[in-house]
């Protein structure tokens, strides 16, 4: 069929890969595992590309967007509820798909090298394919419930991949934590779905948008509630305050996983979801405000923690959280295209950062502590140069990709209503911090002298470097599309915000400020870590409280531990199990049984074995029976006598 894109094939290929490798992988030769693992996302990518080709005007004409494909058989048909498997391809999902399958494919390739010597090679790739499957389902989803499939599914894949080294308690813990925290977010999403169902009677995004469009005056109220519930879901998946805690721990997984799931794709699902349901958010300024606040706060918050982390992957993790905060900020100021734009560029450079970090770690034989690195520039040059491109991109230097997208968000924030300036200011401060800690990482890793003597770094294999290089190119050039074009492209889906029209003088001015700030961050890092390496420690020593606060990540995990987890366990154990279950309910049962037994004991005493006692009881019984019969009769006579 010419007019069919066979969207369902996009997730299906990775799923097939998952099944093949998952079921048979342990028995297949390694090369076959690799082939299956790589070919399946490649096919998906190819399909996406073929679709994109038409859209971008390169090839044959394709059906107009949005293109909807629905499975003829419904999924859940119960009573009045009809939910089908429907996939939607529009500009938004296309961009996401390109990122997901493209970056995903690159990371798969990278993993071939990175994971080459791991035991669960086949297991790793089957999980990766599973992730690709769920992620593409999430992106393509035409209704909220199908999206929820992907939503939960990527959480599952993330859980499995974080816990890949399951023999390590920390890894298993991290996986569990990720899943459960995500589930808390999913709880919000689910409630949101219920609210949608209750208020719209449908979960299909287009129908919801249509119904909203039909009621132009409908604002706030229940829509705010829906939006906030969805936001909870998004904060869970996209590691925003207050549900970000799982992401740093997720670094326990293999590095390609961190790159793919916890940097480039899955964590951006929240942003994607908000963009997808923007019709609802648009009707609730309050909810949007919350989104912006959450985003800005997270951006700043995570950046401060990132300043002092010593684990290379953790720095990147906090930077991811911070960057996701930007995206949320973008959504919060209704600049969805900007947010998606940043999402895309971020996918390039953050994947690159992680992969490069992975390469570093690979080179150092598993070392992740920044304090034990240094002087790697010469030893692993390709890694160094690609990483450098990424650092510049994330720091927001012109003309790297990050510059364009971050700038678009900051500009949109600046223009956004009363709080906009504040958001912008927070964004700029975050940019400063980002620049600082990224260069700190850069310095500590590559420059200076090696601080560890017993390692012999070596450059990574080709399979790892090739993806690095491609991503480096994208990090450099990915932003050149320009916000204007990108915004126009996405406009049919997410609309156009005021800031996305084109560049103005103000925007240029703001850009200059941003670049200046980034430069400032570099300079500070340069001063602290290149010129006077000891001064950083001095600074930390000078502000022990602050440093302690930061290095311990504001004690958030501990706070959660003491306010949520421990009380829950304690209440379950002591109040519910011991008091309610054992003492009250068990006690009640025991009491009933005990009463019966006690009564039994009393009645046994009755059986004294003494004949005369027995006779006494018989006599009593006889007297009672006699009384029983005679008394009513006597009374009756008396009464009737009275009657007479």
């Amino acid at each position: 069929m010419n007019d069919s894109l066979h969207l369902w094939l996009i997730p299906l290929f990775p799923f097939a890969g998952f099944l093949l490798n998952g079921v048979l992988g342990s028995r297949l030769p390694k090369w076959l595992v690799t082939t299956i693992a790589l070919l399946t996302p490649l096919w998906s990518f190819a399909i996406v590309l073929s679709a994109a080709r038409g859209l971008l005007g390169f090839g044959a004409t394709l059906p107009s967007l949005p293109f909807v494909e629905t499975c003829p058989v419904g999924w859940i048909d119960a009573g009045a509820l009809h939910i089908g498997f429907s996939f939607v391809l529009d500009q938004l999902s296309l961009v996401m798909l390109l990122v997901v399958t493209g970056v995903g494919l690159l990371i798969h390739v990278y993993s071939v090298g990175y994971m080459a010597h791991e035991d669960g090679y086949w297991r790793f790739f089957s999980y990766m394919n599973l992730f690709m499957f769920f992620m593409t389902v999430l992106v393509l989803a035409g209704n909220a419930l199908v999206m929820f499939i992907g939503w939960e599914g990527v959480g599952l894949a993330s859980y499995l991949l974080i816990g890949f080294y399951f023999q390590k308690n920390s890894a298993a813990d991290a996986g569990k934590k990720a899943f459960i925290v995500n589930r808390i977010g999913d709880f919000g999403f689910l409630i949101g779905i219920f609210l949608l169902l209750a208020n719209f009677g449908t979960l299909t995004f287009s129908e919801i948008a249509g119904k909203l469009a039909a009621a132009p005056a409908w604002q706030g109220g229940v829509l705010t509630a829906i939006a906030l519930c969805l936001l909870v879901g998004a904060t869970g998946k996209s590691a925003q305050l207050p549900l970000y805690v799982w992401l740093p721990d997720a670094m326990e997984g293999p590095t390609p996983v961190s790159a793919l799931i916890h940097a480039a794709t899955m964590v951006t699902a929240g942003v994607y979801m908000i963009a997808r349901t923007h019709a609802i958010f648009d009707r609730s300024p309050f909810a949007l405000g919350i989104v912006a606040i959450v985003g800005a706060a997270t951006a700043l918050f995570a950046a401060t923690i990132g300043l002092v982390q010593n684990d290379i992957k953790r720095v990147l993790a906090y930077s991811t959280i911070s960057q996701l905060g930007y995206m949320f900020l973008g959504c919060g100021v209704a600049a969805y295209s900007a947010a998606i734009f940043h999402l895309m560029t971020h996918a390039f450079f953050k994947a690159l950062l992680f992969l490069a970090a992975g390469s570093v770690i690979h080179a150092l034989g598993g070392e992740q502590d920044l304090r034990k690195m240094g002087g790697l520039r010469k030893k692993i040059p390709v890694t160094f140069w690609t990483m450098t491109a990424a650092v510049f991109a994330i720091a927001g230097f012109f003309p790297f990709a990050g510059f364009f997208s971050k700038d678009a968000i900051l500009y949109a924030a600046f223009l956004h209503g009363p709080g906009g300036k504040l958001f912008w200011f927070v964004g700029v401060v975050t940019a400063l911090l980002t620049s600082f800690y990224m260069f700190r990482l850069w310095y500590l890793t590559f420059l200076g002298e090696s601080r560890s003597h017993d390692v012999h770094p070596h450059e990574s294999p080709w399979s790892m470097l090739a993806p690095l290089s491609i991503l480096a190119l994208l990090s450099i050039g990915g932003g050149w599309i320009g916000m204007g074009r990108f915004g126009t492209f996405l406009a049919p889906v997410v609309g156009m915000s005021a800031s996305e029209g084109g560049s103005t003088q103000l925007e240029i001015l703001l850009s200059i400020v941003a670049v200046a700030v980034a430069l400032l961050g570099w300079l500070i890092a340069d001063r602290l870590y290149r010129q006077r390496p000891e001064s950083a420690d001095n600074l930390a020593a000078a502000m022990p409280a602050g440093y302690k606060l930061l290095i311990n990540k504001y004690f958030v995990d501990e706070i959660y531990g003491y306010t949520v987890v421990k009380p829950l366990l304690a209440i379950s154990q002591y109040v519910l199990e011991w008091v309610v279950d054992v003492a009250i309910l068990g006690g009640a049962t025991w009491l009933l049984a005990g009463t019966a037994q006690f009564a039994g004991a009393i009645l046994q005493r009755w059986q004294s074995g003494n004949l005369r006692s027995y006779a006494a009881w018989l006599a009593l019984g006889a007297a009672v029976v006699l009384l029983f019969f005679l008394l009513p009769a006597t009374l009756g006579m008396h009464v009737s006598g009275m009657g007479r």
Partner: protein
Amino acid sequence: MTYLNESILTIILLAPLAGAALIVILPDRGKLPAWIGLLTTLVTLGLTLHLPAHFVLSQHGFQFETSRLWIENPAIYYHVGVDGLSLWLVVLAGLLAPIGIVASWNAIQQRRKIFYALFLVQQTAMLGVFLSLDLMLYYGFWELSLVPMAILIAMYGRKDGSKAALKFFLFTFIPSAPLLVAILWLYANTGTFNFADLQILIASGGLPAGPLCWVAFAFLFAFAVKVPVFPLHGWLADTFSEAPVALAMVVAGKLGLYSMLRFHVGLFPVQARALAPWLVALAVIGLLYGACLALVQRDFWRLLAFAALSHLSLITLGIYGLTFTGWDGAIYQILNHGVVDGALFLLLGILEARYGTSQIASYGGLAAKVPQTATLFVITSLAMIGLPMLNGFVGEFLILSSTFTGVNRGWAVAATVGVILGAAYMLWLVQRLFYGPQSPLAAGKPASDLRPGELLILWPLVALMLGMGVAPSIWLATIENRTGPPTLKGSITLPQPSLSLAAPGEGQQ
């Protein structure tokens, strides 16, 4: 074929009994009883599959019906039949039986004859409960199901079997006393035990309302203990931790929940509605309570017991939400729970058989040693905590969404919280059993992974979980063709979400 359609239910009921008789007659030599048991249950399963294959979707009411006078006065009929409500439950019962046999294959080392014979009797009793359309016949099977169960728990209990068996028996037997009185009262006032007749007679309003209320309550109470509904779950944990795996997997839920739907809500819709808010509340409390307690259990059977409490409470919520969709979800979830719990029991039973303990703390790091077990366990756990595309989700979603849209948002939200806790305890269990460094126990015992026979039963189950998660319509279509209570029809359906009601903004305009 017509003849078969008429007698198929009788054959289904008799098949396990025949197997039991065969086991009793033949000598107790080696695995002979187990083989006969397996064969019988497989045949029974095959027979039950006849039902969905020949179930006429377009035809309303009971199908495959047979009705014969059994006892003249009082008029008790041997009256059996299935509708959408019981159809898949029968198949489920048929499916769980071979699983139970496989679970017992190596766990039961001695006195196999008694075990398998009683197991098959239990099977008949359970099928009988699902099939009976005469209240006395139903009650007969209902009580009969207790005996083999209790005896086997007493015989094969892990530590103090007879105590647990007694607890189980009394907990379920004593509440059935009011149930019998209620049934007798109905008979005394209507002169029939026939389900359909009673449904009409009760709906007609000819019976005095006050006593009817108590009658309905007696029904409910008996079922609620059997399910169990919080706070009547006292027997559950002990039974789970003592009962042989094959029995534990059939003991909770199904019978009670089915009975609630058929005989409480089905017969007494008005009274059920009056009590529904309370039950919804209890169900949600039980859901959260079970989940919380499951978090802190040290023994995996007890953990599973409280998890079951939590899940069964969810189904109860679906039933007493009194919405059409909720019932769909509830019935579907009963099936899911059966499949998932069956697999979990089987897996944990295998672990216990190989490692000799059910203390979670003794385990750890098993995944490297028994990867297949770990994989299947994780998949089953995921199905249990309601991951989309696996079966648990569909039921959960239907129940929760119908509760949210049609019953009460607060309770629905609270119930959803319980679902999250479900993920917590299950994943924690997975982690403590399979992940982390290997425990001394795990390292010390050269235990093997799953055997072919076990795989042969587990993979189809997993496939079923997936199938039921992806294509629930296959089941839901039949489930919806059930005979609802006459008065409830039309009065309660899924509250059609209407924009005009839900969107105040539009109203203001």
